[in-house]
């Protein structure tokens, strides 16, 4: 047993670091650092193209589909280093969500049509799962798809569609058999966003940003060949997608970056004539969360190791989701606490560096309430853990 990375793994990390140093454009990096999302539509595909140019477009994919074929440990190091370097996040909806479903359940035509365009950043995907009345109880979804010749006619509404305003495609769960048991009457459809009958309406969030949307379907014609898997077998795809990411690789690097920022912030703020970082009460709170992040990181590595040895999956995906989101929220709370009354100022300007810092921290605190709600709320995750350990 050894918690340290091997020399090979460290060499790999250094290679990723060097690549990021030489290839991550400074403007992009600074926008991510400041939380400036005004160029998201351009930055995300541009960064995807840069990574693709190096052959690193899809760290998680097998080689046969143009992925890297990296081990889970390498994927972890790659994601952590990218986040620490303030690289734009790669879009999970295409790369980590619909792509694995296509690889597992899609036919060859679908794989050849969609995967290369995800890999090179041509297509922006979004997710059509949640509906106004179907959140945790996803299988109760009501968006209908009825056969009409060689197509489905889709009617209904999806909600909380993240970055749907930029999307070229949406993958949707739709009800194709209203009479069957809820899970048995669902199909998995790929829908082009420019299809007539689709309208996207912004849902403004508490942080003032436009991040999520309602997507309305009004007699939208979707060719049958855009269905992945069999008709009424979409729930299998949905479950596969939700269970695919056991290890929640993305979060740790982001949390480490935020913690570094918190330390720097506390060192820069003066309280009672000395840096806030020297205040025993406040720095003890930072110390507690830093220790928790260390424990979370090691737990994540243990899960990766178990997965590589193909040990039977347990409740670890839920465990990591709960703790990673709690730790990130905790860090953002501490940033607001560090700012104190200065955090009241909420100006949506990126021109003044200091002001932008304050607003970014407050916005992050507000925005990150989502972490414990989305992706299966933390209460649902606790249900999953309980079912596994209690077998009730």
């Amino acid at each position, binding site marked *: 047993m050894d918690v340290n990375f091997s020399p090979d793994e460290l060499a790999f990390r250094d290679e990723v670091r060097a690549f990021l140093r030489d290839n991550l454009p400074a403007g992009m990096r600074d926008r991510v650092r400041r939380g400036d999302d005004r160029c998201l539509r351009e930055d995300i595909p541009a960064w995807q193209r840069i990574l693709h140019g190096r052959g690193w477009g899809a760290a998680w994919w097998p080689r046969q589909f143009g992925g890297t074929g990296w081990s889970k440990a390498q994927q972890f190091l790659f994601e952590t280093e990218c986040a620490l370097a303030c690289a734009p996040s790669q879009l999970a909806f295409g790369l980590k969500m619909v792509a694995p479903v296509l690889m597992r359940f899609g036919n060859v035509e679908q794989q050849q049509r969609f995967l290369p365009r995800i890999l090179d950043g041509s297509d922006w995907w979004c997710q059509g799962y949640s509906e106004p009345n179907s959140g945790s109880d996803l299988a109760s979804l009501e968006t209908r798809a009825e056969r009409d010749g060689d197509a489905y006619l889709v009617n209904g509404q999806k909600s909380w569609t993240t970055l749907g305003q930029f999307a070229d495609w949406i993958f949707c769960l739709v009800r194709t058999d209203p009479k069957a048991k809820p899970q048995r009457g669902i199909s998995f459809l790929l829908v082009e966003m420019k299809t007539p009958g689709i309208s996207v309406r912004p849902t403004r969030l508490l942080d003032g940003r436009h991040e999520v949307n309602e997507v309305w379907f009004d007699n939208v014609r979707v060719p049958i060949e855009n269905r992945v898997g069999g008709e009424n077998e979409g729930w299998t795809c949905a479950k596969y997608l939700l269970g695919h990411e056991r290890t929640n690789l993305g979060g740790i690097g982001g949390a480490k970056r935020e913690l570094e920022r918190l330390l720097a912030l506390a060192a820069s703020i003066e309280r009672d004539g000395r840096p806030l970082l020297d205040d025993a009460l406040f720095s*003890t709170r930072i110390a507690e969360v830093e220790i928790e992040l260390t424990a979370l990181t090691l737990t994540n590595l243990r899960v990766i190791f178990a997965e590589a040895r193909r040990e039977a999956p347990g409740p670890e995906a839920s465990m990591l989701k709960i703790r990673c989101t709690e730790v990130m929220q905790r860090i953002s709370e501490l940033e607001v606490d560090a700012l104190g009354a200065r955090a009241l100022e909420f100006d949506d300007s990126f021109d003044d560096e200091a002001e932008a810092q304050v607003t970014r921290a407050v916005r992050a605190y507000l925005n990150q309430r989502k972490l414990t709600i989305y992706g299966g709320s933390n209460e649902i995750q606790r249900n999953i853990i*309980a079912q596994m350990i209690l077998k009730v």
Partner: protein
Amino acid sequence: MDFSFSEEQLLLETTTRRFFASEYSFERRFDILRSEAGWSRDVWRQLGELGLLSVSIPEEHGGVAAGPVGAMLVSQAVGAGLLLEPYHSSALVATHAIARLGSVEQRERWLPDLASGERVAVLAHEEPRAVLDLSRMSTRATRVQRGWVLNGHKFGVYHAPMADLLLVSARLDDGKTALFALPSSLPEIARRNFRTVDGQRAADLRFENVCVSDDAYLSAGADAELLEVLDFGIATLCAEAVGCLRRVLEATIEYSRARTQFGVPIASFQALQHRMADMLIRVEEARSMSYLATTRALDADAGSRRAALSGAKALIGKAARRVGQEAVQLHGGMGMTDELDISHHFKRLLAFELRFGTTDEHLETYRQQMLAAYRRSENTSHG
């Protein structure tokens, strides 16, 4: 990165678990707990025969030399089984101290008897707040002709009542620290034996002009070496706590599935399910930190070792408090009884929180390390 164990390490773990399953039932332990001595020399010799007392002894002295990982696996089983005999104090900490700091002659004199279970040794180090901050240590050793004179006071030394040999830490005239090996039977040592909250035996020891000869002197006089011994003690105590935590969680899960109220198992209530899910998370994070403590226990880099060990002790201490309390609560009235092992685990976990530096002391130590690391990184990036 490797979270697997070698065959030898797994064998050691299996041996220990088998011993507890077949030889250390709750009833047998209960009898030992109630006995005058509070430990069983038979059990101790059995552990010696199984080779478990020599995991910290180097091969050249006939030991198993299982290293921190082997010691961790045995300690997990010791914690789960609530062993009352001085495994951690004698077979791990004191034995490691002698192996690490003793001269060849001293090692040859003491290690064989410690390995066989003929003798028990303990490290007498604890003083208020002086566990990690050796500058607070008040016990003194003064040089005299052909020996030393010890004066001082050690508090709550676990397993001192059953020890044959005391390894007493003391500050020398030049400010350095050293260990002195004393026969526990010396009449000049004033002692007050007592039972601890977790049913073990300990003593306050008072040294007033206790004269020892030169061959009792046990180290080159470096603080770093004593701290390393203490960190090995912290890492293995953390492993004990993790074994205890896992058992407590298992017991709570089993109990909630068996206990019926309102016509259904109480495990079917979501209010309790979520609490057990949180217990699992804390136990797994405690285990992760125990792995970190084990890997860093002998790390020569004192800074990274200090942060890892104190971080682990602080996080596992909090898990011990929370998971222990939750386990009692979820057992209801049964969690309060002396007849069920859950209350014994609860008290063992409480003792863990308080020993080898409390949770708060380690959190403070970690905080200091964190600030120092931040300043170093600032200086590097600006200089």
